[in-house]
């Protein structure tokens, strides 16, 4: 397993942990509503997915015309909390077999934070994207902080790429996390120990407990932009899970 650098120089994070006292589960989203997969089924289900190479990371690896979908890159701004939602949307698009769309998380973060380099949490961005969508880089270039990007055409493009159904998970609920990953539902995951928000893609193993996450530090980090978290570090302190997104085929 690659030794991951969780704080490489020059790389920013940006998580502001969600205050669950002020913003409890379900305050702005439907709470997690799937029946939980019993723990005694986890191993068999995982093996079935592994045998078929049928996990979200497998789909990510062919999701751009047969090539890997490029990792998002927050490029030194504290916008991890927006990029994690967009990574989850890209994984869902691959699952649905929608064509690759170069969604631009900077649009989401800039507008929410009024162009300030400020942190947030994953649910903040996902709930905004559910309402407003996210444009492609054709309408908001990657890593651009320019207010001139916010045009009616950009808003129209963004509206094509919305989250339609999602669930607000409970903090540190391992069963909810594993249920989603075994059903190929990506999890926008906030990790307080890391000060960072990323997208959980796969259950890698149960003993030891390991998950694969998709970071927003470009493809040069970890294994093509993904890394393995283990044990308690793999269980998010904040989770929100998109499971249906709009069809946009252009």
């Amino acid at each position, binding site marked *: 397993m690659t030794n991951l650098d969780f704080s490489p120089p020059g790389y920013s994070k940006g998580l502001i942990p969600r205050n669950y006292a002020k913003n409890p589960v379900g305050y702005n989203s439907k709470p997690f*509503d*799937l*029946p*939980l*997969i019993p723990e005694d*089924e986890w191993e*068999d*289900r995982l093996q*079935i*997915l592994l*045998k*078929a*190479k*049928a*996990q*979200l990371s*497998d*789909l990510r690896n*062919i999701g751009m*015309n*047969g090539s890997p979908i490029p990792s998002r890159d927050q490029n030194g701004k504290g916008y991890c909390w927006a990029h994690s939602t967009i990574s989850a949307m890209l994984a869902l698009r691959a*699952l*649905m*077999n*929608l*064509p690759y769309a170069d969604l631009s998380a900077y649009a989401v973060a800039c507008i929410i934070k009024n162009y300030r380099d400020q942190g947030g949490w994953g649910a903040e961005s996902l709930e905004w994207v559910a309402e407003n969508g996210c444009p492609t880089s054709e309408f908001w270039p990657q890593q651009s902080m320019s207010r001139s990007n916010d045009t009616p055409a950009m808003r129209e493009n963004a509206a*094509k790429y*919305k989250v*339609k*159904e999602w669930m607000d998970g409970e903090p540190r609920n391992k069963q909810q996390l594993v*249920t989603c990953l*075994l*059903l*190929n*539902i990506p999890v926008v995951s906030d990790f307080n120990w890391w000060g960072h928000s990323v997208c959980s893609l796969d259950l890698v193993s149960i003993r030891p407990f390991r998950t694969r996450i998709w970071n927003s530090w470009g493809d040069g980090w970890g294994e093509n932009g993904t890394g393995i978290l283990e044990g308690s570090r793999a269980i998010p302190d904040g989770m929100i899970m998109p*499971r*249906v*997104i*709009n*069809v*946009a*085929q*252009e």
Partner: protein
Amino acid sequence: MRCFFALLLMLSVCQAQDGTEQIRLPISKEVVTPAAITELTEESIFVIEADVPCIVLASRTGFVAVTPETGPLRIRGKFADGTKVETRAYTAKHLWIIDAVAKGEVELLIVPNGAKAENEVVRRTLIVSGSGPRPPTPPTPIPDPIPTPTPTPNIAGKRMLVVYESKDLTKLLPTQIALMSSSALRAYLNTHCEKSSKGHPEYNFWDKDVDLTNASAVWKNAMALPRDSLPWLYVSNGTTGYSGPLPKTEEELMPILKKYLGD
């Protein structure tokens, strides 16, 4: 089965946004499987009326004559779907009169101006007959050993669609979850389904409630096809296909796909 094909015949017209049919064809006296077929005798005429400009083509040439007319128009004659000489008043602006020229089978294709997808083309097969011998009746197809409960030719081209309910994913078998993301299955579909205008393989795995505002017409139509349960599988090769519950495993699914999409 007849009810299904009657539905298929009804779907063989284009509909305006307000639900009215923009292209109207005579309704056959008898619905004949597998596609709508009308007999056109030497002395009868087949009239197509449309509210939108169209191109009407006859494939193969030489069996019928296609004469455009401008409506509204009263026409007297023996109509393909009538039993005697009568006068009919056609109110549509765009009319085409189809006359028999030579005996044989011909397919009419009615292409609305500006059509962007194959499924916007209306098709009707005519068997042109007369006082001479009729074309031979096509042989009855031998029943296929693979169960095909509800053939669905109404998805254009080689396409596959799986529709599911994301709220019920835990009710699916683990093998069904796996086949929806299987690398081997995707590799097969990538090479056997036709490509969109932008080169993207045309198959999808969609929740039944996806927003289709920005979906292409062919997929909007496919999502509107009937189904009895979820998850549901549609496979089409443009002519016929499969519509039924999603098989339990990839091993059960592949023979269905290969039958319609090829080995």
